[in-house]
């Protein structure tokens, strides 16, 4: 039986901040917009972003976009593209005001202007005094943004496919992307959505690691869909780890706890950060603390029966302080670690938090791939948000810059799509062979028989990634990891679904997610193995220095044959002088 088909001017996969902001630009201009989301839009992972969004509004302390740009370039360890960064920092200001108009209830100063918080990595005057650049809607910034954008989209008549799962992109022989194959989770029925443009806005992939801070939905689906049609992933080796996740569970114990006087100890009760960062100690940057924890564990000073975590001590602050200033931490420690931090230390381990890499795009959200003398766009394909890499975070992202990224580039992608649809007003013919290629993963999981289960293979994959492509990366450790991934590829091929029912078969969705996790995990591990330097979040004890001569370039990983390619960092901003590389010290 032929598959059902629907046609829209434009398809957006993902209803987080990036997808919804793009959709709004398009629906407002009268285009037929479909938004597909595997969960109800306001349950997208953007909801977890409580901290806020950066923009140099200068409402609390002096500030301007150029200082914001400097901080972002430096934070990126000089791997971010300076044109894209300039653009994002300039656009931040109108973007925040646009959100305010869309109804986001930002916290305010007594005079009515938007209040701004101080975050790490923010400076005045190119590395001077602390700046205050983060705008927040109390501790609900992400939700407030999603809620406002969702309401505006309903008003603008965006067509939502809630609880539909995108499986694969449709790309024809000429390389044009024509939409996607999706499946309704409730009925298990597939559908072809034909569209003149498709935007991937599927968010991050933190679930590739065993210990991570991400919601279960963050399985890198859009990244994997791009890989499968031959698009490379860029800078995947750069993954931000937060040093203090609850061991074995992953949720964050925020820096605030150490800010209040909490500190880390090893199994001998030693404050080991004194050895690694004598000045900043427990408040050293995230990558430094994460690495120190891993070194302690590797050298046999880990806590617990398996010696595989460190302890975060706060009980010395007294019950009253813990109850008053750290209520959330107390509750989650009790529930997820089984300890009351007012009396006992919290077991912690570095937790995978944010993917700097992703689908390579230009600053208009157009997906770009290398061609002989440079690069070219993939006609009809766009990407924005955490799944994309417009290269504004480089090797390391600053807090509050991710919400900014998704909103700015979501919005700009929307604008560019409008132009594209104007110039390409007709749907192209969709060949059967294209559909057949797209549906393969769905059919593969219909196979009967015995084999390893999905949960089992996923756990092995997550463990392998944590042990071999996590915080601690040497040539030997990573090679072993890629060997294990080879073996896991066979296990994955042999894996079988036990339940083939159609309606709300969440096991099938998890199987499809596992395919995606594998492809993205492999991209990350192989990219990491190749980069022989330490930069930002990518740290190698065997190559401890940043090597600007050989490695100031972006990596591109292709699924076919695990091939790697590289492209230069764009060091020339749009209007200002280049910030030349300097050591990244704080």
């Amino acid at each position, binding site marked *: 039986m032929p598959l059902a088909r629907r046609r829209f001017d434009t398809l957006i996969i993902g209803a987080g901040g990036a997808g919804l902001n793009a959709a709004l630009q398009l629906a407002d201009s009268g285009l037929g917009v479909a938004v597909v989301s*595997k*969960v109800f839009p*306001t*349950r*997208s*992972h*953007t*909801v*977890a972003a*409580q901290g806020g969004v950066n923009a140099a509004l200068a409402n609390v302390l002096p500030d301007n976009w150029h200082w914001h740009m400097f901080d972002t370039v430096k934070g990126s360890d000089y791997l971010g593209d300076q044109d894209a960064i300039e653009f994002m920092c300039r656009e931040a200001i109108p973007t925040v005001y646009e959100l305010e108009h869309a109804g986001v209830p930002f916290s305010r100063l007594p005079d009515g202007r938007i209040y701004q918080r101080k975050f790490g990595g923010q400076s005045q005057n190119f590395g001077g005094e602390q700046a205050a650049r983060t705008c927040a809607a109390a*501790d*609900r910034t*992400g*939700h407030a943004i999603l*809620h406002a954008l969702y309401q505006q989209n309903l008003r603008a008549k965006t067509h939502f496919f809630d*609880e539909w799962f995108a499986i694969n992109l449709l790309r024809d022989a000429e390389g044009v992307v024509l939409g996607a194959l999706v499946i309704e*989770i*409730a009925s298990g029925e597939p559908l072809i959505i034909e569209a003149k443009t498709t935007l991937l806005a599927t968010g991050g992939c933190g679930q590739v690691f065993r210990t*991570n*801070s*991400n*919601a*279960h*939905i963050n399985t890198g689906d859009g990244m994997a869909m791009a890989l499968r049609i031959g698009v490379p992933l860029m800078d995947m080796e750069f993954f931000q780890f937060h040093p203090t996740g609850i061991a074995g*569970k*992953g*949720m964050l114990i925020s820096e605030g706890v150490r800010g209040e006087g909490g500190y880390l100890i090893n199994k001998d009760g030693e404050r080991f950060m004194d050895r690694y960062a004598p000045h900043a100690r427990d408040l050293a940057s995230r990558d430094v603390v994460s690495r120190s924890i891993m070194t302690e564990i590797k050298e046999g000073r880990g806590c617990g029966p398996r010696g595989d975590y460190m302890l975060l001590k706060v009980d010395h602050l007294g019950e009253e302080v813990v109850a008053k200033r750290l*209520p*959330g931490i107390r*509750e*989650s420690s*009790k*529930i*997820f670690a*089984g300890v009351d931090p007012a009396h006992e230390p919290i077991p912690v381990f570095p937790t995978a938090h944010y993917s700097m890499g992703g689908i390579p795009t230009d600053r208009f959200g157009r997906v770009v791939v290398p061609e002989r003398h440079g690069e070219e766009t993939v006609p009809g394909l766009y990407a924005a948000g955490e799944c994309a890499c417009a290269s504004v975070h480089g090797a390391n992202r600053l807090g509050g810059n991710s919400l900014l990224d998704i909103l700015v580039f979501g919005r700009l992608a929307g604008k560019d799509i409008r132009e594209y649809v104007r110039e390409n007003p007709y749907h192209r013919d969709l060949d059967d062979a294209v559909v057949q290629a797209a549906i393969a993963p769905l059919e593969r999981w219909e196979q009967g028989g015995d084999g390893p289960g999905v949960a089992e293979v996923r756990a092995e994959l997550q463990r392998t990634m944590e042990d071999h492509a996590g915080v601690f990366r040497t040539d030997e450790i990573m090679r072993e990891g890629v060997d294990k991934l080879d073996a896991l590829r066979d296990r994955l091929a042999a894996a079988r679904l036990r339940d083939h029912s159609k*309606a*709300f*078969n*969440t096991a099938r*969705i998890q199987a499809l997610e596992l395919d995606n996790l594998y492809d993205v995990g492999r991209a990350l591990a192989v990219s990491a193995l190749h980069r022989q330097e330490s930069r930002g979040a990518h740290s190698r004890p065997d190559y401890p220095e940043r090597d600007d001569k050989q490695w100031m370039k972006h990596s591109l990983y292709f699924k076919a044959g695990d091939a790697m390619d590289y492209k230069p960092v764009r060091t020339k901003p749009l209007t200002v002088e280049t910030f030349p590389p300097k050591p990244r010290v704080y």
Partner: protein
Amino acid sequence: MNEALPTRERLRWQCRRGMLELDLVLSAYLESRYSNLDDAGKQRFVDLLSVDDPTLNAWMFGNQSPVDAEMVAVIADVLSAAVEN
């Protein structure tokens, strides 16, 4: 069985949230205790799932609690199931 209640398969997907903490506590409850509840109890859990993520987060891990006493009880039950897990 009450026809008006969503199937367990549907609820399993409703437990997929935007925050890891909620993913864990809600799905643990669904798998461990939900089937032992009477219809009224099941309905309360279904109602809980319709609450937005930041509010659930504040009720479970923050310093806030719902006005409705029944909701307070469901949350306590959900959290105690999570501790057992």
